[in-house]
């Protein structure tokens, strides 16, 4: 981690306008990604986790400049991606590739998978014969022997096979960075594991760097060396996968761990899992965006958003609970303190809209202490 970062993201922002009314004026903005900064170091896997709608996919597309950001910068190996000319951009695209979530929509139904993979090479001027040869070789590497599968069309393949094609297509240009946007989420559990293992093998073989995006904390924990937790377009916590698993700091991270089904009895938390849907990113809450679902919300949370600050080595969190003066009342110590607790809080949480007040009451009903006090 001492090496220079491969990818540097600074203050990235993307708001989508919402138009309506007689003249289709913009009346609101969807704050998909709002001031996100992070680094990705060579050979690591950075996991990005968050609920659906938190801006993960937008972030992936911003990194690859498939959509233009409103503000902020992306640097790849020291080179400014946002300001790159068309020529530079085309070259940069060889180094950064994206694997998509939806194995159905991400393959052109009119191309054989061999042609789909070879297309990228043709774009970059490789001869047709060589492109086909390399595509076939790579298809074989991802487990789709070209002799059997190369001339097939996507609709003749299973979801897992299609995702393998997606991976091959992303790798055929020999990229250094692979952004994986929920690469296994649409697949069955057993297939999911195969795909994840394939990705791990490929990473080792080709010295790849991954940015791995998922809503599934178990998957993120399994594949990532470092994790970044997103909530409504913002980063709320970052740290090593181990640090986050052992001592999640942000109430949102804690809630994510609590709601992720885990077989590990040591991993049971007494924090209530999340209830309700995240608030609308069109009109996010003031101050800390999580406060409307947070059991520890304080008056000041509504005022100014908390900044990311270090709470450990390479472990940052954006929460007022961890400011020096507040650290006494922080829930840090009680992460594992509740012996057993009631791990099945979800059953007791009948209210679906999950307003803060209800959350508190239901917590009280289970006899847990107020913010660890």
């Amino acid at each position, binding site marked *: 981690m001492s090496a220079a970062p491969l990818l540097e993201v600074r203050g990235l922002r993307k708001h989508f306008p919402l138009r309506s009314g007689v003249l289709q004026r913009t009346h609101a903005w969807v704050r998909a990604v709002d001031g996100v900064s992070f680094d990705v170091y060579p050979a690591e896997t950075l996991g990005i986790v968050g609920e659906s709608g938190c801006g993960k996919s937008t972030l992936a597309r911003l990194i690859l400049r498939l959509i233009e950001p409103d503000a902020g910068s992306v640097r790849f190996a020291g080179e400014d991606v946002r300001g790159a000319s068309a020529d530079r951009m085309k070259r940069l695209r060889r180094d950064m590739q994206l694997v998509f979530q939806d194995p159905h929509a991400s393959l052109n139904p009119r191309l054989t998978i061999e042609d789909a993979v070879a297309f990228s090479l043709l774009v970059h001027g490789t001869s047709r014969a060589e492109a086909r040869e390399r595509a076939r070789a790579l298809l074989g590497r991802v487990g789709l022997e070209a002799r059997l599968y190369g001339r097939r069309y996507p609709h003749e393949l*299973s979801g897992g096979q299609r995702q393998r094609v997606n991976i091959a297509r992303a790798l055929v240009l020999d990229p250094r960075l692979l952004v994986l946007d929920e690469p296994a989420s649409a697949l069955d559990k057993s297939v999911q594991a195969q795909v994840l293992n394939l990705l791990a093998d490929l990473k080792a073989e080709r010295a790849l760097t991954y940015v791995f995006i998922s809503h599934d904390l178990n998957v993120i924990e399994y594949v990532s060396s470092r994790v970044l937790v997103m909530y409504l377009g913002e980063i709320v916590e970052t740290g090593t996968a181990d640090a986050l698993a052992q001592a999640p700091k942000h109430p949102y991270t804690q809630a994510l761990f609590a709601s992720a089904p885990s077989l590990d009895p040591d991993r049971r938390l007494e924090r209530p899992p999340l209830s309700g849907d995240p608030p609308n990113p069109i009109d996010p809450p003031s101050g800390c965006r999580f406060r409307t679902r947070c059991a520890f919300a304080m008056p000041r949370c509504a005022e100014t958003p908390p900044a990311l600050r270090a709470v450990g080595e390479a472990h940052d969190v954006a929460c007022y609970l961890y400011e020096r003066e507040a650290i006494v009342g922080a829930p840090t110590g009680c992460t594992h303190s509740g012996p057993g607790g009631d791990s099945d809080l979800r059953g007791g949480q009948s209210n679906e809209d999950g307003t803060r007040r209800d959350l508190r009451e239901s917590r009280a009903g289970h006899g847990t202490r107020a913010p660890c006090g």
Partner: protein
Amino acid sequence: MAVTTALPRDLDAAGATPISYWRTVAWRLARDPATLVAGALLGLIVLSALLAPWLAPYDPNAGSIRLRLAPVGAPAHVLGTDEQGRDMLSRLLWGGRMTLVAGLTPVLVAFVLGTALGVLAGYVGGLTNTLVMRTMDIFYAFPAVLLAIAISGALGPGLPNTLISLSIVFVPRVVRVAESATVQVKSLEYIAAARASGAGVPAIVRHHLLANVLGPILVFASTQVSLSIILAAGLSFLGLGVTPPAAEWGLMLNTLRQSIYVNALVPALPGLAIFVTSMAFNLLSDGLRDAMEIRT
């Protein structure tokens, strides 16, 4: 879902040939009796129009007043003669050429131009889209027949003017379909994947977009052929299309109209030809739509 459907294929993967989309469409078309009959009929009509110079027993424009309005089945004139004593069979064969040209050309023009404009508007979006689509909307202010008559009426009679006015009728329709198909396909991930690979707009449009929007556009265009034929013949019927003495089904219907009191069957023949041709095109486009599984 997709996992289970593909499993049986894995077993015999070695021997299987890939099933391309068009192969599937052809397979389905070949198994639809209505489509086959319509296709065969249409083939016959097109062939007889093409071969009119060799098939027609008489000069379509030569007639004698003595032989006016001979009935169907008359000796030497199987389908009778028209009000000027010209052989109906010959005129119907030659007339088919005119009607087919006048009906098919505008749809062909619309298919090419409309696809180009629609894909442009749909892919570029923004102001270009607004400009193109709002302009097309204007043509929707007229029912098809009226627009064709308005333009033909102003331009005057003649085959070229018919082709122009009907093209103007059909281009906006194709543009709408092409635009909406393009917008839909453009949002799919494989287009984003192609962009991520560094492909430029021309390559994306050529290899990824067109292949996926041409199907729906083609089906739509095929549904318009029958209307185009009816309109083309209709313009001639009104005296706005092909000019006499040329043989054209609509024009023949017009000139024979006054003779229905003398001979009821012969004047009905050109219209019957329009009807059968138009129906064959409709059945064919229905079959195509079903085979391509496109909902319209």
